[in-house]
């Protein structure tokens, strides 16, 4: 007995010493089974531990068994001797275990060389942590004291295991914290979304020793990358298959519940049970939450070693996910910020260019210089808009046309290359170009001539330049050849297949159009270009409007001064004329009497001497009459003073003059001026007077309002320009028609009867003719036809 007690004490003190050593649990257990086998005088001993799932016991250390079996030999709880003892939590001694029904033989474990055994549960309070065996190759009927000794040793071991497990837990937790910290560091190391997602996937997979991971981001408007999908797998295709089968369903569940999900075994899940041929899996999936909104889901598949995921794993992944969510949102936000920053930079650059151009444009009020600055800004790279060529057209309200004014840009590749390298080498701003005056040196470039040749009528029609004005909006023509809006003339003039037009709008009125193209670089004109060009055009339009107003003021000022001078001159002349008329009247009549009666007297005289005196008198009378005639020759003739003039301009002026009266009389004006009318040799003042007479006649014919049609057209077959003035009045009777051009003939109670005869005289003096016809629909039409200039081939 004393020996047994002594042995017992030495075994327990040895176990106590081992448990306080710094070795790890496997080493400690190995030392403990050595001590137990030695102390009990047996040739074998072993320890099985119940794993954390509580479902199996696994060999953790052994003496006398094959060491390869350690960590591999295991039984479910309740199976085998170890399983039975772990379940029943009572010791068991078997002299012949092989005949016991509870025994389960495990080949190549080395158990076959033993004959008898004793097993005791390793208890910690009420929980069983494992089983300890003492093994004997000799037949061994164990005494109760020996069973008690093993049980006591087992109790001592429980402390070792518990401490080791607690230590392991702490180690694991520290490791998890370290991992989370590392992931946190990693998450802040990149702001690019794609690498970030890959990093999260890889770290999560490795930390939890999973086989694969997928991350999906929700298609949320505030996340720049839609449906971003990232996966990391250390097994490959198997995980891809699993994810294809389970990923969507699990994600949907996580998003709906906004909570992590742990699925230990898909075959035991009501929805996922049918794997459709995909291997069973253990899955944990957690939402990426940002401000209580699910922005994505991270899902892990299958732990290594075939074990299911645990609550601890889920907790760990949730912790990682909370950091990851912030990082993902940051990355997404950064992406948005970058986009915004790029846009802001572009805006700032545009503004700076517009500012430069604005400054340049405000530097002059001279229209010609201003147009050149505008077009240069449109064609300059760097501080300008950078188009290859730019043309400027202005509207003419009188003739209702759009007229090309100026073009800036190279005419050939060689010239383009030279000009652009000059610009880029000099690094001059637009303002500097203007100050050096280099812009204004070459005025008659081929493009300028080309621009001046463009003239488009602004009647409503499907033509791109007219539409730019009429619809007040830009047009981006990408295929001129196939675009029905581009007239063949314009195509032939420009010789490019893509160009853009923008209206110049000042005070809600279209004053012109800018046309740009990239003839040489062939760079496509983008919507961004158009938007910028439009901003620019708006600014340019205001500057042009100012310059035009300024020019008009100057012209008006000059005209007024000239008129004043003329007025002074004509007043003098009028005074002189009046005086001359008086003198003429007063002198001519007496001269007629003197001369007339002297002639009569001469007829009666026979004396030659007397006749000589009479002749002297008659001679002097003739001389005085001659002096009077010469002095009166300054009085001007009716013959027209012919100068080159534009009929459409004159018509426009007249219509403007009577605008108010038309409105007052409720007369609607329909104008149709031919833009191809040649310039005629006319006395503009007389023609204007003649047309006004016709116009007044037409207005008086429409007492209750009506439609006045003014038309100009060219009749090349008779080489005549025609002007039609039509009314919707009662028309002209046959009787009136015969007399209508005779002076003093009138059908109106207060008419003078001179208007139409004056018009007739004026037209005849221009070698033209006047025609009159009644319309079938009522009203009459007067047509004036004036001949084309002699030596012009149009």
């Amino acid at each position, binding site marked *: 007995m004393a020996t047994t007690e002594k042995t017992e004490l030495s075994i327990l003190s040895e176990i106590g010493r081992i448990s306080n050593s710094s070795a790890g649990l496997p080493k400690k257990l190995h030392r403990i089974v050595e001590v137990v086998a030695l102390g009990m005088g047996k040739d074998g001993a072993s320890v099985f531990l119940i794993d954390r799932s509580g479902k199996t016991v696994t060999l953790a250390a052994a003496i006398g068994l094959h060491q390869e079996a350690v960590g591999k030999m295991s039984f479910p709880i309740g199976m085998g001797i170890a399983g039975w003892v772990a379940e029943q939590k009572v010791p068991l001694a078997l002299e012949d275990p092989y005949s016991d029904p509870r025994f389960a033989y495990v080949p190549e474990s080395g158990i076959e060389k033993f004959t008898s055994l004793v097993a005791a549960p390793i208890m910690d309070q009420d929980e069983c942590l494992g089983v300890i065996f003492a093994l004997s190759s000799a037949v061994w009927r164990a005494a109760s004291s020996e069973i008690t000794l093993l049980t006591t040793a087992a109790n001592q071991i429980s402390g070792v295991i518990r401490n080791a497990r607690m230590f392991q837990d702490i180690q694991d937790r520290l490791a998890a914290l370290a991992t989370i910290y590392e992931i946190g560091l990693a998450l802040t190391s990149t702001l690019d979304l794609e690498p970030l997602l890959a990093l999260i996937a890889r770290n999560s997979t490795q930390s939890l020793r999973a086989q694969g991971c997928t991350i999906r981001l929700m298609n949320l408007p505030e996340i720049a990358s839609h449906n971003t999908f990232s996966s990391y797998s250390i097994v490959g295709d198997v995980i891809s298959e699993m994810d294809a089968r389970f990923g969507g369903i699990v994600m949907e569940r996580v998003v709906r519940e906004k909570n992590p999900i742990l699925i230990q075994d898909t075959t035991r899940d009501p929805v996922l049970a049918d794997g459709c041929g995909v291997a069973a899996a253990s899955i944990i999936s957690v939402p990426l939450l940002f401000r209580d909104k699910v922005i994505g889901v991270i899902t892990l598949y299958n732990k290594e070693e075939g074990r299911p995921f645990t609550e601890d794993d889920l907790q760990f992944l949730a912790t990682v996910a909370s950091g990851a969510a912030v990082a993902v949102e940051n990355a997404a936000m950064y992406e948005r910020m970058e986009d915004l920053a790029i846009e802001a930079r572009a805006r700032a650059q545009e503004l700076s260019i517009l500012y430069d151009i604005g400054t340049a444009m405000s530097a002059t009020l001279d229209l010609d210089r201003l147009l050149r600055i505008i077009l240069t800004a449109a064609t300059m790279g760097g501080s300008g808009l950078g188009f290859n060529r730019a043309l400027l057209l202005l509207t003419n309200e009188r003739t209702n046309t759009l007229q090309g004014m100026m073009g800036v840009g190279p005419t050939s590749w060689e010239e383009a290359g030279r000009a652009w390298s000059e610009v880029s080498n000099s690094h001059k701003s637009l303002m500097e170009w203007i100050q050096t005056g280099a812009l204004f040196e070459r005025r008659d470039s081929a493009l300028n001539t080309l621009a001046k040749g463009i003239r488009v009528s602004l009647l409503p029609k499907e033509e791109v330049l007219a539409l730019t004005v009429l619809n007040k909006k830009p047009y981006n023509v990408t295929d001129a050849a196939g675009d029905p809006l581009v007239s063949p003339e314009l195509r032939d003039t420009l010789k490019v297949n893509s160009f853009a037009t923008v209206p110049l709008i000042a005070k809600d009125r279209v004053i012109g159009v800018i046309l740009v193209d990239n003839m040489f670089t062939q760079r496509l004109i983008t919507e961004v270009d158009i938007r910028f060009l439009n901003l620019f055009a708006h600014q340019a339009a205001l500057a042009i409007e100012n310059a035009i107003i300024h020019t008009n003021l100057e012209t008006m000022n000059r005209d007024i001064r000239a008129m004043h001078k003329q007025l002074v001159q004509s007043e003098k002349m009028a005074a002189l004329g009046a005086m001359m*008329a008086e003198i003429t009247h007063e002198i001519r*009549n007496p*001269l*007629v*009497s003197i001369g*007339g009666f002297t002639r*009569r007297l001469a007829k009666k005289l026979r004396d030659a001497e007397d006749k000589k005196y009479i002749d002297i008198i008659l001679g002097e009378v*003739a001389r005085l009459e001659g002096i009077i005639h010469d002095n009166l020759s300054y*009085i001007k003739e009716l013959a027209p003073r012919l100068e080159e003039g534009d009929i459409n301009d004159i018509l426009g002026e007249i219509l403007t003059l009577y605008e108010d009266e038309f409105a007052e009389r409720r007369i609607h004006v329909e104008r149709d001026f031919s833009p191809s009318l040649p310039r005629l040799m006319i006395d503009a003042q007389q023609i204007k007077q003649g047309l006004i007479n016709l116009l007044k006649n037409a207005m008086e014919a429409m007492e209750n309002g009506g439609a006045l049609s003014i038309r100009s057209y060219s009749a090349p077959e008779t080489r005549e320009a025609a002007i039609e003035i039509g009314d919707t009045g009662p028309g002209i009777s046959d009787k009136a028609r015969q007399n209508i051009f005779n002076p*003093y003939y009138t059908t109106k109670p207060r008419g003078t009867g001179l208007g139409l005869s004056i018009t007739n005289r004026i037209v005849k003096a221009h070698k033209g003719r006047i025609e009159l016809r009644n319309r079938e629909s009522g009203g009459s039409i007067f047509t004036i036809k004036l001949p084309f200039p002699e030596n012009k081939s149009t």
Partner: protein
Amino acid sequence: MKKILVVDDEENIRALYKEELTEMGYDVIAVHDGVQALAEMDKMKFDLVTLDMRMKEMDGIETLRKMKGKDAALPVIISTAYEEYKHDFGSWCSDAYVVKSSDLSLLRDTVKKILG
């Protein structure tokens, strides 16, 4: 015998024209302004009128318009010291325009041409 009405506010001119035209074989009545001229036209029918432009009562243009209103077919020769009336639109409906001259041959020729 064809009747000619001479209208002129200068007494001497009236006398000269009357003598000259009478000598040519016409029956001449001379008055000194438009009002009298129109009154004479109411009394009898004339074949020709010579009409001065600047007169005290009713000027030539006005007289001419009224004469043509009474008898549009009556030939009227404007006889005036003013060359510029030739360019006045109002004078265009006259049948001839003769600037007064001491040499009456142009007047004689014009009268002969119109009266045949």
